[in-house]
């Protein structure tokens, strides 16, 4: 019987990660809610990719610090996800029958929402994570999944052999069928790194989730348990090769790098793309203002910002204030941050609402920086730095100083 609520494909977005490696930036918010690129949050990327790919039903699985994320997603309207049928659903863990429990792992999070997915009776489920910056057409991946008649398709991106030992690596035959999965291998056999993006045939995944839950030894994780089990059972798992920009922004260093990639046309991260817009909840601010004393080059500046000082190779987010004579270089200034007159900020991330006092010095110019090991100083959300205080490179400031 045809279900009137049927959706061919439903996306499940894992947004519960605590993001401990982002330290003070995720002290009060979940990682997907961390601001990015002047006016976005990380979760805008998977949400916008979904709607641009024609997927209009998305379950957002939250757990850690869900409040800000819930409020941000709201009814999904900024992403065109306020639908009569489907749309964006925020799915925190809840009490079922006598038992209630937290999401124990990525697979368990989906397992606990089997009923939600079943309501749409989908053929396919896309599982996404909320900590990557990339633009991707999931519909093409879904088409590849169908063409191969796969049970599971995993998006992979080519990395260098040196980087490969930091990723989950998919070893494939010439037809891209995965015969082996290795998590962070010391001696990688290939360079196909998993992007944490999966397309599953729902009927297959559903059974695996039930079996996985019944296994007391399982950690209920896709990478550690479900995928290896499917491989062992000879299920059809295929790699889908993605070409383009993709970055895991799970560390301070990579988050900073991804912001800097916005300034550099050759990075491949171009958000000014009318055919693939990244949507965000709008802050309703007037245009930004560059004062007579402002010097801004090689930077991006968003609405509501006020710049009186000098900004070089930096990202200035909406509603931020850069005072007279302040110098901002190679830094990311998050929304509502205030950099007072004469302060110097270099190689740093200044979080939402932080205030840097007059003449304070945050971070310093790097001597021969090593790619991937930037000494990024971080001033946490709402933290006040008193005038003339010095914050060392790579220091993470949690409290007023």
């Amino acid at each position, binding site marked *: 019987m045809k279900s009137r609520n049927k959706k061919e494909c439903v996306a499940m977005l894992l947004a519960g990660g605590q993001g401990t490696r982002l330290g003070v930036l995720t002290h009060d918010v979940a990682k997907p809610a961390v601001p990015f*690129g*002047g*006016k976005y949050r990380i979760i805008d990327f998977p949400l916008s990719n979904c709607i641009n790919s024609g997927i209009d039903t998305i379950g957002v699985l939250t757990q850690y610090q869900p409040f800000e994320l819930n409020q941000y997603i709201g009814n999904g*309207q*900024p992403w065109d996800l306020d639908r009569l049928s489907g749309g964006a659903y925020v799915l925190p863990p809840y009490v079922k029958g006598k038992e209630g429990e937290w999401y124990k792992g990525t697979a368990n999070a989906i397992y606990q929402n089997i009923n939600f997915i079943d309501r749409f009776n989908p053929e396919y489920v896309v599982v996404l994570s909320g900590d990557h910056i990339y633009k991707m057409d999931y519909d093409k991946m879904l088409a590849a999944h169908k063409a191969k008649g796969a049970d599971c398709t995993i998006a992979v991106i080519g990395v260098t052999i040196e980087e490969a030992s930091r990723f989950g690596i998919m070893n494939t035959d010439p037809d891209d069928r995965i015969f082996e999965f290795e998590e962070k291998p010391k001696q990688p056999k290939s360079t196909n790194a998993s992007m944490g993006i999966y397309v599953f045939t729902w009927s297959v995944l559903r059974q695996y989730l039930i079996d996985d839950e019944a296994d007391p030894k399982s950690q209920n994780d896709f990478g550690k348990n479900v995928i290896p089990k499917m491989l062992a059972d000879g299920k059809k798992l295929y790699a889908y090769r993605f070409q383009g920009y993709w970055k895991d922004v799970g560390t301070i260093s990579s988050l900073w790098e991804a912001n800097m990639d916005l*300034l550099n046309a050759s990075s491949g991260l171009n*958000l*000014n793309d009318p055919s693939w*817009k*990244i*949507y*965000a909840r*709008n802050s*309703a*601010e*007037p*245009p*930004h*203002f*560059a*004062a*007579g*004393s*402002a*010097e*801004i*080059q*090689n*930077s*991006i*500046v*968003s*609405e509501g910002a*006020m710049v009186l000082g000098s*900004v070089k190779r930096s*990202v200035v*987010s*909406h509603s931020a204030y850069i005072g007279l004579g302040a110098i901002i270089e190679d830094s990311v200034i998050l929304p509502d941050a205030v950099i007072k007159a004469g302060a110097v900020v270099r190689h740093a991330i200044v979080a939402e609402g932080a205030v840097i006092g007059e003449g304070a010095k945050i971070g310093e110019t790097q001597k021969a920086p090593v790619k991937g090991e930037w000494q990024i100083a971080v001033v946490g959300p709402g933290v006040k730095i008193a005038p003339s205080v010095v914050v060392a490179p790579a220091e993470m400031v949690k409290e007023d100083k």
Partner: protein
Amino acid sequence: MNGVMGVIFASDNENKLNELTIHRTTASLPFCGRYRLIDFTLSNFVNSGITQIGIVTRSNYSSLMDHIRMGRDWDLNRKNGGLSVFPPFVLNSSREMYKGKIEAIYSIQGFIRRSPEEYVLLSNSNIAMNIDFDEVMAAHLAAKADVTMLVHKAKTTTSRRLVVETQDGEVKDLYISVTPSSEDKLLGLNVYLIKKDLLLSLVEHEYARGHVDFEKDILMKQLGSIKMHPYLVKHHAAIVDDVRTYYNESMKVLDPAVREELFYGDSIIYTKVKDSVPTLYKENACVKNSLIADGCEIDGLVENSILFRGVKVEKGAEVRNSIIMEDGKVMENGSVCYAITDKNVTVTAGRTISGYESYPVVIVKDKTV
């Protein structure tokens, strides 16, 4: 304020705005880098809890419709109330577009009568300010007024303005001025709060006699017979009624104190969300004293100017004392000074456009220079 509905007249002084309103109503005139004039009135209404709003249009209203759509960006897509847009209509008797606000109100009297609200706020759309109408209502009730008219202190110019003379907190005299004054006067902002029954009876009476002008045929005539209360708007209020006031009022917004009053007052000013990326400043960018919307790419010089969304200023190009509307492009070594370029205007490489401070040149939509 559940007891008040709003009516906005989308067209005023369009003939004086020349090239800027060929393709649009005054209400949809782009303003301040990312707004349309009507955003201010709509946002003030919404922020004061006025959510039953009628917009009367006269002509060229497709750009207005494209801008406001279902009113979602102002939170006006409601089950109860929300936006009602009245397209241009031809009156049976005269076979022409409405000539004045009396005809316009008469034509939507059914809408006004059927709405459950007791009061009506009438507003022209050529006004940008940030105001809390709750305070206007409180003053109206305290003064036991029949009509409250919003006024501000300003000098008259050559454009047609209603001068309000007061005595003991009441309107004593009203007259139209078209000559410049050297000192500040109280000038009407064309925003009125009135009980709808009174409004409809006044309008019906004058309409039957063929009168069209709300200020002249109703307010001036009723002086002395109904109680008119002036409400002084102390914050910045911009009135745009010709190209010169459009230019001057735009440039005033470069002053941080004016922006503070306009954007950070009681109301959040909403507009249509376009999801542009933040603005990119390139290697050779040099931007001074300018208001820059999202989505721009700047590699040249911009000084004392306003750039709307998606404007490109290429290497060696110069933009001074100008307003460049959405998707404008100033190519390499092009130069724009004292100009207003409408949407999607391209100034090709090496070309110069130059007007005068007192007479800024206007380049119409979609033109390539």
